[in-house]
């Protein structure tokens, strides 16, 4: 696939369709790829990479890139196309300035998961029929491929591209919630007692170091000035000085993207403390589906977002008191 992509990129650059390509750049090791913009065929030949580790969603960069001179080629995985579409819908990306080539998605690998197994000193990773052969400083190690895939890929919601100008490889299908199991963990939490839920989230959120990686990587978080950075908001803070502030930041952040979050999972992927932040977003998605009908952000560019909409027969907030476990 990488070769097909490189050829496609060089061809589109050569025929003038685009003047830049956004993709991923090779790093020092096998796994540390960086999203990057390429301008020449030479740069692409030297550094362009698309492999098991190119999980980063490049959609958000297109907010800026699509406002620059000329057209840019973006390689988007199925999940990335949802973020892209949502940003187009919100008029954050200038659609005409992006040439979207859909590429097959994951599952992608998570180097942290390999390291968590105690496999360190990683020099090379190869997938051989579902087994990862990992070359390390301490000899070769193996582990099952599925145990090393990224959290966000474990519960993949769709292999279908919702937007593209051209497709490389075959188109896939949307995966139902039952099949993907993406709400399973949310449900599990809902079925705990309030005290258990509280304890769970306290343990998770107290790990937060407020690095803002989740916010800054999030394709739905594109405010020019975040309320948490704005001294005039009265709640700006750099670090959680109290457990309340840890809760507040994550509640408000999740709330702000409710109905716009496409469940791309980048927040959890980048969290240095492995906080399962996507569960907060999924809770909102699950509630929206249950209360206001199935809705997938980014699926289209025309429908009204659930929080910008209403129905006269909507349920009352008291429904929260009537459901589930106290």
């Amino acid at each position, binding site marked *: 696939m990488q070769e097909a992509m490189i050829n496609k990129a060089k061809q589109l650059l050569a025929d003038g369709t685009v003047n830049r390509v956004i993709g991923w750049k090779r790093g020092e090791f096998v796994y540390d790829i960086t999203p990057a913009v390429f301008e020449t065929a030479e740069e692409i030949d030297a550094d362009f990479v698309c492999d098991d580790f190119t999980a980063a969603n490049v959609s958000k960069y297109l907010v800026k890139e699509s406002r620059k001179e000329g057209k840019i080629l973006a390689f988007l995985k199925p999940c990335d196309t949802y973020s892209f579409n949502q940003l187009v819908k919100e008029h954050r990306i200038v659609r005409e300035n992006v040439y979207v080539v859909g590429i097959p998605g994951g599952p992608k690998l998570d180097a942290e998961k390999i390291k968590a197994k105690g496999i360190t000193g990683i020099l090379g990773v190869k997938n051989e029929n579902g087994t990862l052969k990992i070359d390390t400083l301490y000899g070769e190690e193996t582990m099952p491929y599925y145990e090393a895939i990224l959290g966000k890929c474990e519960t993949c919601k769709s292999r279908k591209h919702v937007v593209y100008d051209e497709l490389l490889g075959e188109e896939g299908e949307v995966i139902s919630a039952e099949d993907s199991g993406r709400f399973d963990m949310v449900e599990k939490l809902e079925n705990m007692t*309030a005290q258990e839920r509280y304890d769970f989230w306290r343990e998770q959120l107290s790990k937060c170091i407020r690095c803002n990686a989740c916010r800054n990587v999030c394709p739905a978080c594109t405010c020019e000035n975040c309320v948490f950075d704005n001294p005039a908001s009265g*709640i700006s803070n750099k670090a959680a000085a109290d457990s309340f502030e840890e809760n507040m930041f994550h509640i408000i952040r999740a709330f702000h993207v409710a109905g716009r979050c496409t469940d791309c999972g980048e927040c959890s992927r980048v969290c240095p403390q492995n906080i399962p932040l996507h569960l907060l977003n999924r*809770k*909102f998605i699950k509630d929206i589906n249950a209360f206001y009908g199935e809705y997938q952000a980014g699926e289209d560019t025309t429908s009204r977002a659930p929080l910008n909409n*209403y129905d006269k027969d909507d349920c009352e*907030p008291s429904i929260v008191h009537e459901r589930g476990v*106290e």
Partner: protein
Amino acid sequence: MQVNENTNFEPVIVAFCCNWCSYAGADLSGTNRLNYPTNVKIIRVPCSCRVNPMFILRAFQKGADGVILCGCHPGDCHYTSGNYFTRRRITLLYSMLDFLGIERDRTRLEWVSAAEGAKFAATMQEFTDAVRKLGPNRRLEDLRCRKQ
């Protein structure tokens, strides 16, 4: 659920009331000489829809033990549709607070019209009693704001 730590505990209740219905309802309960608990601090807002989720969290931060939001009955909004948006928003917020393990009886939404002075007083009484039973807010509290 939390056990009441202090038998003399008096909760602080913040009530966000829409200017057109609920605030007038509160007024009416006053002119009708109906009693409602002094624990309730009313914050008047132009429309229930004005209430940002942050307001509710901030009320808890600054010492509220319970937060109630009152607005016009659905369909009666002074601004036609404000409370319909409120309803969705607050449903989701309360559900999220519940998800995080915050006691669900600390939050409430009630539609109170300008004619429902009695309902206002009764609702406040009921809500205050429910929060008093829960005890002080500990799960969504900012320790820095606690009075020593």
